[in-house]
């Protein structure tokens, strides 16, 4: 059956480090693995398919009249808001799924394989940008159905969508970190929601900030999510890049700069 002779261990030429190319290739394979799993368990996509549809409908019709006078005027304000809330929620799921995945026996095999240590992590985060893409597309489509006609046209929408996906990828490092240090998947969800709700609701995503009390307004103004929402509104409605665009990018980069090393270190220690 097993016919070929094994090459003796002492006669093999081996390296003790993983090259950059191998790291990239390993990460892509891990991303491929995540995508195959999504294909087998499409229910993993509920949050990025149903949520954009339901939330867009809900928020538009509940707040539309009260905040902007009518639904039509509210759409250019609320669509970027809902988009960002949905995508950031989706990035939280990254952490939960990573935790669940790490509890499976297959991670023990990854650990004894000669692959880049970071690959299982990088692969998972990479694959999730596809989820963010789905959520982004569906939110814009829902908006279009309800009558949203972005002033900057398709180009603005694409630019806004890409910015949101990039931002979500950066934020997902926070949740990946909790995913690794937490003991169970449900505790990841718990911690992440505590971060998620203030971050998305204490922003200008759904309401104009001028009615807020001063202390709240000051938080809302420094919240990177607010800047992201403003940046996406400018991109989709006017087609312009303002200082909010740069501020949200800087915010995202800062998050990665802090959490990527933390996450990688925590993961390495566990791996």
């Amino acid at each position, binding site marked *: 059956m097993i016919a070929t002779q094994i090459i003796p*261990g002492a006669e093999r030429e081996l390296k003790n480090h993983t090259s950059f190319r191998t790291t990239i290739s*390993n990460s892509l*394979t891990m991303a491929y693995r995540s995508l195959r799993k999504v294909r*087998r368990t499409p229910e993993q996509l509920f949050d990025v398919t149903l949520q954009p549809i339901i939330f867009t409908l809900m928020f538009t019709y509940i707040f539309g009249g009260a905040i902007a006078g009518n639904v039509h005027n509210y759409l250019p304000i609320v669509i970027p808001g809902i988009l960002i809330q949905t995508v950031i929620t989706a990035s939280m799921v990254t952490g939960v799924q990573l935790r669940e995945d790490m509890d499976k026996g297959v991670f023990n095999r990854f650990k004894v394989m*000669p692959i880049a240590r970071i690959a299982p992590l990088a692969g998972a985060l990479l694959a999730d940008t596809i989820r963010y893409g789905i959520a982004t597309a569906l939110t814009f489509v829902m908006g279009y159905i309800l009558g949203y006609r972005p002033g900057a046209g398709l180009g603005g929408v694409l630019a806004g969508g890409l910015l949101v996906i990039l931002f979500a990828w950066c934020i997902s490092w926070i949740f990946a970190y909790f995913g690794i240090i937490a003991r169970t998947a449900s505790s990841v969800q718990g911690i992440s929601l505590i971060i998620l709700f203030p971050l998305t609701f204490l922003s200008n995503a759904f309401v104009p900030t001028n009615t807020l009390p001063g202390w709240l307004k000051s938080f809302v103004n420094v919240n990177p999510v607010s800047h992201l929402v403003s940046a996406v509104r400018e991109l989709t409605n006017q087609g312009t890049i303002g200082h909010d665009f740069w501020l949200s990018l800087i915010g995202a980069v800062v998050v990665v700069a802090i959490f990527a090393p933390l996450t990688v270190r925590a993961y390495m220690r566990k791996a």
Partner: protein
Amino acid sequence: MIQQSEIQVEKLIKPFKNAEQEKPAIEARGLVKVFGDNRAVDGIDLTVPTGCIYGVLGPNGAGKTTVINILATLLKADAGTAKIFGHDVQHEAQIVRQLIGVTGQSATVDEKLSATENLVIFGRLLGLSASDARKKAAELLEEFGLTEAAKLTLEKFSGGMRRRLDLAASLIAQPPLIFLDEPTTGLDPRTRNQMWNTIRQLVSSGSTILLTTQYLDEADQLANRIVVIDHGRVIAEGTPHELKTAIGVATLHVRLADGKDIVEAMRIIETILIVKASTSEPALITAPIADPERVTDLLLALREANIHLAGVSVQEPTLDEVFLAVTGDTKQAEKGETTK
């Protein structure tokens, strides 16, 4: 049949062969691993020559899996060193990982993916091209009789199929050293025999295998050398034959009609046979027979003491006796399911 591509073979073999480089597959010195108060591994030395099946025998909680985890770079030893083909498991971990395959107690394959997908992904991670990975996956599935189940997700696999796929996944890179942590625990006799055949074939193709087991029969059948460990220490080492002869010619089993007599019966047996007797069941005493003549005296003495017997038998030594004799912890050896 595995047909390794020529190019790959050339890349792996060094331009010159050096006979002096013949290093043991595993060389461990003074391994210690402490979990809280529990000295799971307490100073273990191991030397596993290349090309053999080395059995690690011990009750649950003896430290077998911890030893494997240290050797497989999954755990850092608190003290001691371990080398795989001369490469340090801690400082050259990534090299060691290229030399080993590990099949653990729990299946380390992806439940949500199909058998083929699992193997292809592992193959890709090991640097095979997409088409090579698919080819390799198909070959391994064929070898392990899983071709028909190739497209099923593992949730639909039986325990034995999962175990085979798990082993197949460990063989993608054709590692020269394979760790098998209780590979047949929970398998039915037929599947266990298949697994044994596979293991023998692996060795005949040049692999070295370190196998842990709680089945003494399995170690006896497969292993060229056996180490018995208990409470994190090596308590015996040698070939199955050496271990058996070390323990005595034969063993006497005396089953008492009344368990209350056991203390007195033990005393008489130990006095007359001049050996240490042990008991593994309430009314069963086992003792090695150094001198068969004395057994006659013993039986007479037992009758004089008015101790009634339910049965007497003489057994040639098995590894079970070896195990009982060296661990001295009979209950765990009998059941094996106690602590973990």
